[in-house]
């Protein structure tokens, strides 16, 4: 299968996934009536990709987003090819997390999610903000705290399902100042995941392109994913939202909120 050479193709896959994926609440009694069908029609064709199971087991959602609760980056941004049923997957120049899910090898393997945003701030500034992990909870909604243990290791406390907290350690596995930070969860973590965040100069003074990618093994297979999605914490959604919040904080100094007063915050 060929993915388009140009970036435009990524949107396709993304939109299709969103159809199946979005943890969106259209609202009680909202005017969405006419819309459901239209959207279905327009997304048809792509929306089934998501339904491939990724392993089985009990519904340990904890994982899903522990891994990603942080909503951060990924690991294999491996561009290029991998195999499934001896058939070559041609990802072209597209990032790994844009490969159609059903094209990924094996059913019990890791899931790759990710997202790129352009942030109108210098690369070094963004990198150094991110490098101090203790600051990440400022924009990561589900992360209660991150304690830096030493130069490489930190301890994360993340809101788990049913409001119970999940704690795990991460270790930095790769660091190129101003360019890349990658980490992975320690071997005894409930949710095994790895994250990678890339900073590169955007063209023509637009600031910095920040690409976050995360790889995790879904805990409870399909059911686990479904439950996590219902809780609004599915890693793909979470990654997208955390990264956008990071952008908002860096560009505007605050995080957009439609609440009419502080007490009404979600």
């Amino acid at each position, binding site marked *: 299968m060929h993915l388009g050479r140009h970036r435009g193709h990524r949107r396709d896959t993304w939109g299709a996934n969103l159809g199946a994926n979005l943890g969106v609440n259209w609202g009680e009694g909202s005017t969405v*009536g006419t819309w459901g069908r239209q959207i279905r029609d327009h997304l048809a064709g792509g929306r089934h990709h998501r339904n491939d199971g990724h392993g089985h087991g009990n519904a340990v959602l904890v994982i899903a987003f522990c891994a990603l609760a942080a909503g951060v980056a990924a690991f294999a941004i491996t561009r290029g090819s991998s195999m499934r049923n001896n058939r070559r997957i041609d990802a072209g120049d597209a990032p790994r997390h844009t490969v159609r899910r059903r094209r990924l090898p094996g059913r019990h393997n890791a899931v790759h999610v990710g997202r790129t945003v352009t942030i109108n701030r210098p690369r070094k500034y963004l990198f150094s903000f991110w490098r101090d992990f203790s600051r990440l909870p400022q924009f990561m909604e589900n992360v209660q705290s991150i304690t830096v243990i030493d130069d490489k290791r930190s301890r994360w406390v993340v809101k788990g399902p049913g409001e119970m907290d999940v704690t795990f350690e991460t270790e930095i596995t790769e660091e190129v100042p101003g360019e890349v930070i990658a980490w992975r969860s320690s071997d005894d973590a409930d949710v095994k995941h790895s994250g990678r965040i890339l900073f590169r100069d955007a063209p023509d003074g637009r600031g910095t392109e920040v690409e976050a990618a995360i790889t995790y093994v879904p805990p409870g297979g399909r059911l686990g994913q479904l439950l996590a999605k219902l809780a609004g914490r599915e890693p793909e959604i979470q990654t997208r939202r955390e990264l956008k919040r990071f952008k908002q904080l860096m560009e505007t100094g605050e995080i957009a909120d439609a609440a009419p007063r502080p007490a009404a915050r979600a």
Partner: protein
Amino acid sequence: MRALVWHGKNDVRVDTVEDPAIVNPRDVIIKVTSTAICGSDLHLYHGVIPTLRAGDILGHEFMGEVVETGAKQKKLRKGDRVVVPFVIACGECFFCRKLQYSACDNSNPVDKADMSEMLFGHQMSGIFGYSHLTGGYAGGQAEYVRVPFADVGPIAVPDDLEDDKVLFLSDILPTGWMAAENCEIEEGDTVAVWGCGPIGLFAVQSAFLMGAHKVIAIDHYPHRLELARKFGAEIINFKDVDVHAALVEMTGGIGPDAVIDAVGMESHGMAPDNILDWAEQTVMLETDRPHALRQAIHACRKGGRVSIPGVYGGFVNHFPIGAVMEKGLTIRTGQTHVQKYLPRLLDMIREGRIDTTFLISHRLPLEEAREGYRLFDEEQNETTKVVLKPGMEAANGR
């Protein structure tokens, strides 16, 4: 406080709700002195814009006095009198830097942004009182309203300009202006405008100010058409006249150089395609009814420009892409980049070059907002613009 709340299709009421307060550091709270009902509010009222929820406060055209400021609010002070753009924009992102404020990437909360990203491929900016697609921010048809990024949007207005003169800077004046700007008017050009509501009427004025040779206004309400004529437009009543034939004849057989759709997704009229749209909309095969837009595209001259200030929210059928392609038309549209136009338009109002007060047919207390909606919806010929004044005594008291 009191505020106009949407309860369901064609059901809005003035209710008592909790006061807003500062949430983010760049916020201010405004005590509203004047707020208007817009054609866009009618789309919400009719329930054709998705994701509106019962309990939402409407209103995106408002002005008033700053009564509270956030910790990092550096521009506005308590007591400032400001008009607030309906588009919420951060001023810092890629789009804001390009002055494309209505494309702001940072003003729509991330969970809400997911919806428009799915529908449109990219997220929209925040807008006051305009469904959850655009953030679910409470609107300004209320006594008080929270205004985010208040160091970017609101413009301070001098005390000697009364509310009625400057209120429309919040939306309809810049929208009519941008509609005309999108026509890229050249000398000798004829511009045809569908819809003589507030947007169409400001587009007529703006097109002349930008040097149009002739403006032709189209509607079916005699009073609204008469207002267009007062500004120098030639008029066509679509009830009595074949619009396409008339436009061809009135432009020497060439067709209008630019066309403006100031009608939007709820076209009136008994044209066959509009009746088909009604049917398809009813059975959910279509969300919007673009009859006026089809007609505009059909009438536009070869190589001409199509400007669409009228709001569309979803999907249409039988879109005349053939006419667009074969005639080589250029289409320009969008929610208005209000912030971009404010200083210039405020100057023009002050210099008396743009007339704004002619439009107002009704000034009502906020308490009578429900009746205001009914009038603007059902008696469109006479009701050209309703302005609500929270400070005004209700006729029959509270």
